[in-house]
């Protein structure tokens, strides 16, 4: 009775909104449908419809997956100051961050599934029914940590929101262990994802121990940058209040993370360039071209320029606290890290191939459409989650309020 009451009023909230809301949801739905149609073609014909080959056997899907794991991890790492140190401004952001984490995780899972040759056999991964090859497969571990992380991110805000909906106090003794657990867990999802690539001696570009730290540093750039933008949208279209101070604090975190990210990149550059071994080839391919091939060169320099520009913007207090430059910086970072931790990380791992072939990869239209579709579904999930949880958080949507209405 009570549950059905919640569901019906939640659905009512989902289908009502300003015209802009309808336009946004419609655009996402259309993109999602196009993506699903493209995926159907891929299912029917196989991965032959993608640009991937036996030389470059991972591409756009795995690139997006890697980027989004970073987003999911960083969104929750913001919990640390919020819950533990009672830093007011960021606490308000956490619920939004967790919603972002949940939708980023859903996108991660969709991207990995899209990359699977045999999604019909996905049950082979279920322990018992199938075989999850633990402890030896890093992909197996990634499945464990990603699903665990998804659970935590549904459970923690779920519990807090249910209490808020019932207008009851949150029992901190009960929920705190989960919150504490989610902190190392967030680190683990990006670390394990880095280890997927890191552990492969066959691919010198990934086989550097600096990879996991670089993953975390870049995640701390792209995650908060996305939240800075998301938060401005949320506070514009809802009664959810967040002080500018919180956004500026996030920008400060990004500046530090970007400094670390650039430093780690420089350390890797030094090692590869100075020692000048055969292992330099993938880096050479990425930044300067190799054996006359270099389709990623313009992309990666764009990423480099974006990251440095954003770093400067976020470092100087004056530009950090100006919304025009702040938003510009956030967009630059998202694009920069998406290139760096997406295609810029995956593709050079395969070029040159272990036997020295330089065979380039260009995603096909179908791959691009499927990827856009997954992004659309992810953003749709995020939109709908926020549409429900923000009114709960602001106290507009409670059991009492619903009863009174």
């Amino acid at each position, binding site marked *: 009775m009570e549950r059905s009451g919640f569901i019906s009023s939640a659905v009512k909230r989902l289908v009502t909104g300003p015209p802009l809301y309808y336009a946004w949801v419609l655009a996402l739905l259309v993109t999602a449908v196009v993506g699903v149609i493209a995926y159907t073609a891929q299912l029917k*014909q*196989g*991965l*032959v*419809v*993608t*640009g*991937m*080959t*036996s*030389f470059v*056997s*991972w591409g756009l899907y795995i690139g997006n997956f890697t980027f989004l794991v970073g987003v999911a991890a960083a969104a929750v790492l913001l919990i640390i100051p919020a819950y533990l140190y009672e830093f007011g401004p960021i606490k308000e952001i956490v619920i939004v961050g967790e919603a972002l984490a949940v939708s980023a995780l859903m996108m991660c899972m969709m991207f*990995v599934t899209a*990359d*699977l*040759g*045999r*999604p*019909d*056999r996905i049950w*082979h*991964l279920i322990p018992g029914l*199938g*075989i*999850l*090859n633990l402890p*030896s*497969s*890093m*992909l*197996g571990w990634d*499945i464990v940590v990603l699903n665990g992380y998804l659970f935590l991110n549904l459970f923690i805000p779920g519990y807090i929101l249910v209490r808020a909906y019932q207008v009851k106090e949150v029992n901190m003794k009960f929920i705190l262990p989960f919150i504490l657990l989610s902190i190392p867990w967030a680190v683990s999802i990006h670390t394990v994802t880095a280890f*997927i*690539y890191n*552990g*492969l*001696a*066959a*691919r010198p570009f990934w086989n550097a121990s600096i990879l996991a730290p670089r993953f975390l540093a870049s995640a701390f750039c792209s995650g908060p940058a996305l939240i800075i933008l998301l938060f401005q949208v949320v506070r514009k279209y809802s009664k959810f209040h967040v002080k500018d101070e919180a956004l500026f604090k996030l920008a400060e975190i990004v500046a530090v993370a970007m400094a670390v990210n650039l430093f780690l990149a420089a350390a890797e550059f030094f090692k590869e360039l100075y020692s000048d071994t*055969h292992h330099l*080839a993938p880096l050479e391919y990425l930044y300067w071209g190799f*054996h006359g*091939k270099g*389709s990623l060169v313009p992309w990666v320099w764009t990423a480099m320029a974006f990251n440095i520009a954003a770093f400067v913007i976020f470092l100087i207090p004056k530009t950090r606290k100006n919304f025009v430059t702040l938003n510009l910086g956030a967009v630059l970072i998202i694009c920069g890290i998406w290139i760096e931790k997406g295609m810029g990380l995956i593709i050079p*791992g*395969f070029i*040159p*191939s*272990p*036997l*020295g*072939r*330089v*065979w*380039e990869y*260009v995603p*096909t*239209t*179908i791959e691009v459409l499927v990827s856009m579709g997954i992004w659309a579904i992810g953003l749709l999930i995020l939109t709908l989650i926020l549409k429900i949880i923000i009114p709960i958080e602001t106290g507009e949507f409670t059991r009492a309020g619903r009863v009174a209405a």
Partner: protein
Amino acid sequence: MSEQSDTVTNKGSISPGGHGSGSGESPEPVVSGPEKAHVRRAGRAGVVSPWEKSGGQEGTSVKSFGAPHRHATKPLERAEEETLPSRRRFLAGAVGLLGMMAVSSCSWEEFFQQQFQRMTEADLEAVVERLRAEYKEKYGKDFVVGTEGPLDGTLFGYALDIQRCIGCRKCVYACVEENNLARTPEQIQYIRVLRFKDGTMNLEESEIYYDPEEVPEDGYYYMPVQCQHCANAPCTKVCPVRATWTEPDGIVVVDYNWCIGCRYCMAACPYQGRWFNWGEPHVPKEELNTQTHYLGNRPRMKNVVEKCTFCIQRVRKGQYPKCVEACPVGARKFGNLLDPNSEIRKIIETKRVFRLKSELNTQPRFYYFFAT
């Protein structure tokens, strides 16, 4: 031999990535079709091939490398062990039962099929039966789908005489035919022959698209590369569902019906020993080899990984791998590493041998050597 050469010529050459829509956009042109004909011409155009003069044919005839003993201890094969004779009998008389398998129920059974190592003997019999019916339906031919287990006291090893190899690629095409490798949409070749300039061994400077009138060419040497069947295999370690593993006789195999197509093993292999069927693999019906093994050359499906199995369908019956037989100069050697009198052991013990990328500690059971 010349007849075989002709067949091979028409098949075109290596087209590693060139499939589907992506190929047109690839910066590197897809090398395929007759225009990229190969050195096999050398043998038939009246030119005296170097290998014809060399007379280095020893070791290429079909002969057994050791008496097959049944394996007794490995738990994996215990079930197989006890049932093999009956299975053989079963397979021999199974043709009559094929019609009883309904296609619709087949796909259902295929969906819920367990991983090879977890199947009981009865499961496996049913699966083999189903596969034979499927192949009969699809190709109109009676297939032998073997499930022979590893032989007792056998650990397979391979050696390739880098000095003798002339780069003719006969092994490549013999392998394609023996193992029912996809001809389209992407031609899969388990063996890659790298051509190096004398004085270098830099993989990035090697060439696989070499195309002279005649081989060997002055100033070059050749190094064929295929799955190295590593003792410390990086590929089997990473598989999230254990669809690939090393058999007790050292052969690294894939259960095509268990692979989920994530291609992690391909990223992990330092030798590019693994291949993926990006689309539905196609082999002309008349070129199908019906003598197959479950873990070997049975017809594959789309979007799963496959690789060299040392011709598991042959070596477990005491035959040499097809590439060993096909080599016109006897550069390829194969045998039992546990047999102290085997040719492979003699080579490893007395010749100058090396293993590719030994710094990665993959410990290949595939050796390169210099015979003189």
